[in-house]
């Protein structure tokens, strides 16, 4: 009987005010996020023709198609491989560069500024720049030719085995600075007496890195991993610009986002399947992020 909480009149009025304050946010979130999510889930069970406003219920046929569609398999393979390579490399390199730039080397500030520049450029502009760099007549080919590694220029952009790797390199190069800056900011808080204590104990810089810096940055690493995973699994704009929307030479730069875009628009009439793909991608990102978070916490080095 005593479970019912009695709020005083004043408390109730304050509650009402609170709800009033968050009403705009609820409306906006409700329409743009909640409603959209429910609509997508609804779409995924239908065969949709948005022009004619036709929705035919087809049950789980779209989900079954996920397993038989060859292009879907390729897209998932590309996306997962992309994420598997880019996330560890960019996290690790960001960590190392951050710890180097945190120490007392000359020109620290200048390096930090220079290294931060790629993040300020839009990814579309970067894609075009990299397409130029890796062009058949571009600097990279010229360098490799001069060094004698290649006999004739390799067309990185039209070669299925190289196209995705170029995008990986570009992505790593452009996101490392952002994470590096986060790490540097985090490292500023590290109390210097820990370094002193470690060096008194005879620890060299590598030991300091693994025993002091790494554990201290664990929470930040979780964030970097999570945003890295979410970002790379959703990569779209670079693949689109690189392959002009087609998914690259022999579907090698086809990511799941690009596939969703192709199925949703164009003459495909496959909006329902695109919705299904979007849901599966969301579930995938969620699962991987949860796993990454657990893995990072599990080995607590504190």
């Amino acid at each position: 009987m005593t479970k019912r909480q009695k709020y005083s009149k004043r408390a109730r009025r304050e509650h009402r005010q609170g709800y009033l304050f968050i009403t705009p946010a609820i409306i906006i979130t409700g329409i743009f996020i909640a409603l959209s999510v429910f609509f997508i889930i609804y779409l995924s069970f239908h065969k949709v023709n948005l022009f004619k406003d036709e929705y035919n219920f087809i049950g789980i046929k779209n989900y079954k198609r996920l397993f038989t569609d060859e292009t879907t398999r390729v897209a998932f393979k590309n996306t997962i491989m992309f994420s598997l390579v880019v996330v560890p490399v960019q996290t690790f390199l960001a960590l190392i560069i951050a710890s180097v730039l945190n120490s007392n080397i000359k020109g620290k500030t200048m390096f930090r500024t220079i290294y931060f520049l790629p993040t300020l450029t839009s990814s579309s502009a970067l894609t075009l720049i990299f397409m130029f760099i890796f062009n058949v007549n571009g600097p990279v080919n010229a360098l490799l030719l001069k060094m004698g590694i290649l006999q004739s220029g390799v067309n990185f952009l039209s070669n299925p085995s190289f196209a995705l790797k170029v995008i990986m390199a570009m992505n790593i190069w452009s996101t490392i600075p952002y994470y590096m800056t986060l790490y540097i900011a985090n490292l500023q808080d590290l109390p210097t007496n820990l370094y002193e204590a470690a060096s008194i104990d005879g620890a060299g810089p590598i030991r300091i890195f693994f025993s002091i810096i790494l554990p201290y940055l664990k929470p930040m690493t979780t964030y970097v991993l999570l945003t890295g995973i979410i970002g790379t699994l959703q990569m779209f704009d670079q693949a689109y610009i690189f392959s002009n929307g087609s998914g690259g030479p022999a579907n090698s730069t086809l990511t799941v986002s690009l596939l969703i875009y192709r199925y949703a628009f164009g003459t495909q009439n496959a909006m329902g399947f695109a919705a299904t793909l979007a849901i599966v991608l969301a579930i995938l990102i969620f699962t991987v992020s949860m796993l990454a978070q657990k893995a990072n916490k599990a080995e607590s080095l504190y």
Partner: protein
Amino acid sequence: MKKLLVIILTLVLVISVSACKKSDTVSNVDQGNSQGNSESVNENPSQETVKEEEETTVEADYSGRKLTVGIWGGNDAEAAALKQVVTDFEAKTGASVELKTYTDINTQLQADFIGGTAPDVFYVDGSMFPFYATLDVLEPLNPNEIDADKFYPNLLAAFTAEDGTIYAVPKDVSTLAMYINTDLLSSVGYTVDDVPTSLEEMVTFLPELQAKLDEKYGKDQIVAMTYNQDLARNLHLLERNGASVADENGYSTLSSEGVLNNLEFMLSLVKTNAYKTPSELGLGWNGEVFGTGKCVIMEEGNWVYGNLVQNYPDINFEVIDMPSYLGKKSSMSFTVGYAIYKESKEKELAKEWIRYATGEGMVTWCSGAGTLPSREDVAEKMNVQSDPVWAKHLEQIEYSIPWQKGTTISIINTAYQNYLPSAVSGEMSLSDAMAKADKQANDEIENSR
């Protein structure tokens, strides 16, 4: 002091906010429209001169009405020509015209159809027409209202649905022809007459030409001929001898025997190493390769003519027929039409626009933008025959096939462009590559039905 600063800051903010005049252009920012070329010209013309020509012009007053015209961005010459047509139209009818420029018209226009915000009149590419016709978003046109009998019949047929209803009016046509850099050719000792008139002879001619070019200019500096890996360019070759890239239901038949034979021939040209795509040379399109003097021969549409004259004036060239294949001459023609949106509220004004733009306006547009007129009377008025380049392009209409093939051609083209490079580079055999392309296209077509 601090208060003064705050007041000044507030004033600056207020002024800057109010200075951003709310124009009545439709912004496509969220659709990734980076070139916001939308213009809204609100002129109240004072001039009274109206060109009264033929019986098509209706002297109605549309002042105060606004027409949205959906176009895709082109080069500067096209933009200037269209602007002139718009100005003339506004002077004539008193209406105001707003141009809505799309960067990716196929995707964005579809989104506009779904959202109900499509422009009153818009470009329809000949190859996309069959698809749009099935969507029930185009307004059927009365042949009498649009002077249907004045247009070239095969062009009008490209915009006619199977039941005979006309949904769009062709505003121009472009064809492919062969461009030859006469300076480069003569520098290695050939004349235009030496260039073979059949593709079979090209297989032997191109390596010879390439060898001479390599000798004179260095290896890999200038290529003999460029081509494109695109069904829009290759279709007339692939469909020779009764072959077809799609069957009667729209399914892809790229790996059918006839198509494969023709493709084998195309690959034999590629194997000469004197026949490359612009991207293999690191450039954007044929026009750029030709204009920068990096190739001797190219097959391009008449849109490149104005570009060459304007941007690359020191290249001397001559335009000849496309080489024949299997004894028959052929080329591709590309036509674009104006269609009216079914839910448009300005249908009469839209019909006026179509009448004008495909009537008097066509002269302005075609001369400025560098395309061929789709009506014979306009062709005479423009005196197309007087310029040899134009005359040559006009001749190609006779044996060109239009770039249009049912509702599924863009799916087939995507699959084709996806897998052809692997066949060209030798990674996959041609039949394997095309079989994969077929499978990809047919899976998608099957699922869209």
